[in-house]
């Protein structure tokens, strides 16, 4: 349940209206109906692809979200790809070669970055690379709608989120590889004369990556909220900015629509994690059968 009276927020707190008008508006919007009826109407509209109407932005919610969703997906998708691939590889190295200086330095960097909230990381990078060095633009998704301009605008937001994802995965993968490398099966593989690299890639990584997949399902909501903050910091006109404005304006239809989309994405991430788990670890399918 969201707090406040939507009618008051719609007409403004400073404007005086008659109680009859308030009643009329409440009836028009269907807010006088019992909660279960309102929910049923919401579900019926949802089934027809109608997420409601924003009276503040004067547009259907679905249209507003669909306009911005691709930009959030571009930011999150690219950052996930970069952060996971580099984080997993760097974590495997840091866990496998714990005594090397490079591995120790990577672990230290991982600790520092993972302890930094994404919005703070974004502010630091913004201050250094935008404000002081002037390498990247101050705001927006693009100056001219072409690939080069989009890349220029999106590089720093993507780098911020990638760094955060990279650091978290580095630490998880490092711990997981450390556990796996002391198991007997890699030692047996080594005793056959297989090289360290071969044992890491063919035996250890496949088993060590399982906690990463579990963490992906748990982390997805956290990563998405981080992305929304980053969008606000870099003034990207995507879902984060839409949510920020909606919260300030108490724009309930937009907020409920956004929460629904985020929930669906989080459920999708969990399903994807379950499927990946089954592909990597055949014991999972076996248990299901």
């Amino acid at each position, binding site marked *: 349940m969201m707090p406040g009276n939507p009618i008051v927020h719609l007409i403004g707190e400073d404007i005086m209206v008659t109680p009859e008008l308030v009643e009329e508006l409440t009836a028009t919007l269907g807010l006088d109906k019992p909660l279960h009826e309102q929910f049923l109407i919401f579900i019926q509209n949802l089934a027809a692809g109608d997420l409601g109407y924003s009276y503040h932005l004067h547009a259907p919610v679905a249209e507003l979200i669909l306009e911005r969703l691709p930009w959030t997906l571009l930011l999150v998708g690219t950052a996930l790809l970069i952060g996971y691939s580099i984080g997993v590889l760097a974590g495997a190295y840091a866990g496998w070669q714990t005594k090397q200086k490079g591995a120790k330095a990577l672990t230290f960097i991982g600790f520092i970055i993972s302890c930094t909230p994404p919005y703070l990381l974004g502010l630091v990078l913004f201050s250094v690379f935008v404000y002081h060095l002037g390498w990247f633009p101050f705001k927006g998704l693009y100056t001219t709608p072409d690939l080069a301009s989009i890349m220029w605008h999106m590089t720093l937001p993507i780098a911020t989120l990638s760094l955060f994802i990279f650091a978290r995965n580095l630490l998880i993968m490092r711990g997981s590889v450390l556990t796996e490398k002391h*198991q*007997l*099966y890699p*030692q*047996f*593989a*080594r*005793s*056959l*004369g*297989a090289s360290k690299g071969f044992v890491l890639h063919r*035996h250890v990584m*496949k*088993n060590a990556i399982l906690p990463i997949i579990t963490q992906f399902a748990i982390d997805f909501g956290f990563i998405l909220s981080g992305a929304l903050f980053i969008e606000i910091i870099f003034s990207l006109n995507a879902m984060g900015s839409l949510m920020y404005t909606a919260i300030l304006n108490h724009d309930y239809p937009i907020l409920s629509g956004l929460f629904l989309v985020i929930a669906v994405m989080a459920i999708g991430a969990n399903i994807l994690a379950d499927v990946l788990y089954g592909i*990597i*670890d*055949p*014991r999972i399918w*076996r248990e299901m059968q």
Partner: protein
Amino acid sequence: MLILHADCIGKEYRKEGHKDLVFSSFSVDVHMGETVGLVGPSGCGKSTCARVLAGLEKPSRGRVLYRGKDIHTLTRAEWSQFRREVQVIFQDPVGSFNPTQTIGQSMTAVLKHVHVPGDEHENELAHVFHHVGLQMEILSRYPDQISGGQAQRAAIARGMIMQPRVMILDEPTSALDVSVQAQILHLLTYVQKEHKIAYVFISHDIDVVEYMSHTIVKMQEISCKMKK
């Protein structure tokens, strides 16, 4: 014939600026077709010693000689031969198999490693499984789907694929039931007689070591040999 010789080996780990001594001045001779028993209380360094003898770790001092040569100065070809001829059987047989691979996949990986042609894999596995008393049906199972006794037999079978001259058995029966222990000990004796393999048999159970070994070395009395 002397095949493996540890010459006053010791192992220590550096921890936060100081040295942690696991064992020191340990010497042992392993002859072809014989069993050397290694006994000692928990924590005296038996398993570390096994890993050093198997070449999985470098000794901090002393040398391990295989067929008269220091194993850490071997050429690539000699090292490859050493790795093939000296096999390790671990205490936890299930844990020595990759949990995401079937027993068959683990066996096939070893056959590929020793360049056995693909069309001969089934015959080779049938031969070695018959030797250790295992059914071929376990090839399709995962390590957690077989019993400890089956897993240890499978581990011995996997070691035998390499046609080793020395097997280092690190507490091979301590994770098994008493009845299964006896079966595995009989199997090891049978395999040794058939293939003239030398064993380094590590255990904290003096009765088992006495049953299996021609020579016994006590770890707390390092460098001191005790003939049966």
